[in-house]
């Protein structure tokens, strides 16, 4: 009979026990799960069961992690995203959430840049923790990403991005994500990256403040190589604060736009690039 163990197909004799599967595949496993539920070693398995064998506290190795990601992804996706380098300019509400989504997707290399430190007020929407207050955001985020997927390479740049250093910092980025807070900084980044790398796509965020309908947040192509995620109008202002849900919606529009670009599909519609 066929049993899926840690996302890989294996053949076993009829009525094999969970313990015998553990002994053959991962003898030091101390948590055995069958079809989503913890089970004992004596459990008799049936054809088509899905078994997960875990040794508590152990980090899966590169190859095992790769196999898990490959199994969870549409065929062909994993190899493409694993070979990708993505730049993220600014790791506040947008950038921190985008980085986490892309790390979970298995992007091979993230370049993150920001000069900021984690402040208590950031915790209303940014992907940081109480025990990270005071740390440079890029280092705190690098630590968090390593806890999610230690096989994603993260280049963390604790600095202010300027017209002088953008091309150097993001020289290897296939796609640049703009995730700044201030409008003039968004414009500065886009102009300078486009001037140096006119054929590389950029994904920007504009208009995600407040708690208006999530459905007004869109992904649009606004220039030849520029995709804008947001409602394009709702600025952060007194009385219209930045809040986790809508910032998260825009951030994940951006992350999905990056993924679609890597896979050769236009971010704003069905089809091929």
């Amino acid at each position, binding site marked *: 009979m066929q049993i899926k163990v840690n996302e890989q197909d294996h053949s076993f004799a009829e009525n094999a026990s969970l313990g015998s599967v553990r002994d053959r595949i991962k003898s030091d496993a101390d948590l055995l799960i069958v079809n989503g539920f913890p089970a004992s070693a004596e459990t008799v398995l049936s054809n088509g069961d899905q078994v997960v064998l875990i040794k508590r506290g152990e980090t899966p190795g590169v190859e095992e992690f790769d196999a898990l990601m490959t199994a969870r992804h549409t065929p062909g996706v994993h190899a493409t995203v694993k070979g990708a380098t993505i730049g993220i300019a600014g790791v506040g509400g947008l950038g921190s959430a985008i980085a986490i989504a892309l790390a979970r997707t298995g992007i091979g290399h993230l370049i993150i840049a920001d000069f900021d430190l984690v402040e208590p007020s950031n915790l209303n929407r940014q992907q940081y923790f109480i025990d990270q207050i005071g740390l440079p955001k890029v280092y705190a985020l690098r630590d968090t990403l390593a806890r999610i997927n230690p096989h994603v390479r993260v280049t963390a740049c604790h600095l202010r991005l300027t017209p002088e250093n953008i091309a150097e910092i993001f020289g290897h980025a296939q796609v640049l994500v703009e995730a700044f807070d201030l409008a003039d900084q*968004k414009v500065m980044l886009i102009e300078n990256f486009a*001037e140096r790398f006119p054929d590389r796509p950029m994904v920007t965020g504009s208009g*995600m403040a407040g708690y208006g309908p999530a459905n007004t947040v869109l992904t649009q192509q606004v*220039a*030849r190589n520029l995709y804008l995620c947001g409602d394009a109008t709702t600025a*952060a202002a007194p009385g219209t604060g930045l809040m986790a849900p809508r*910032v998260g919606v825009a951030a994940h529009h951006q992350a999905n736009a990056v993924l679609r670009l890597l896979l050769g599909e236009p971010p704003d519609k069905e089809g091929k690039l």
Partner: protein
Amino acid sequence: MDIIFNGKAREIQDGICIQELLDQMQLDCMQVVVEHNNNIIPRQRLAETPLNNGDALEVIHFVGGG
């Protein structure tokens, strides 16, 4: 002369540059990305880039928040 401004035909004054058009429209060049015939133009070059009949201009206005 006529240009395509944000996807729509628009009549503008002859012989002006992009910066002059932005000024006439009271658009702040610090808050907009300008794409002229498929190329993004840095703000410091807006005043030296003339507009010609039939040009395509996209002006993308940005708001703060992130």
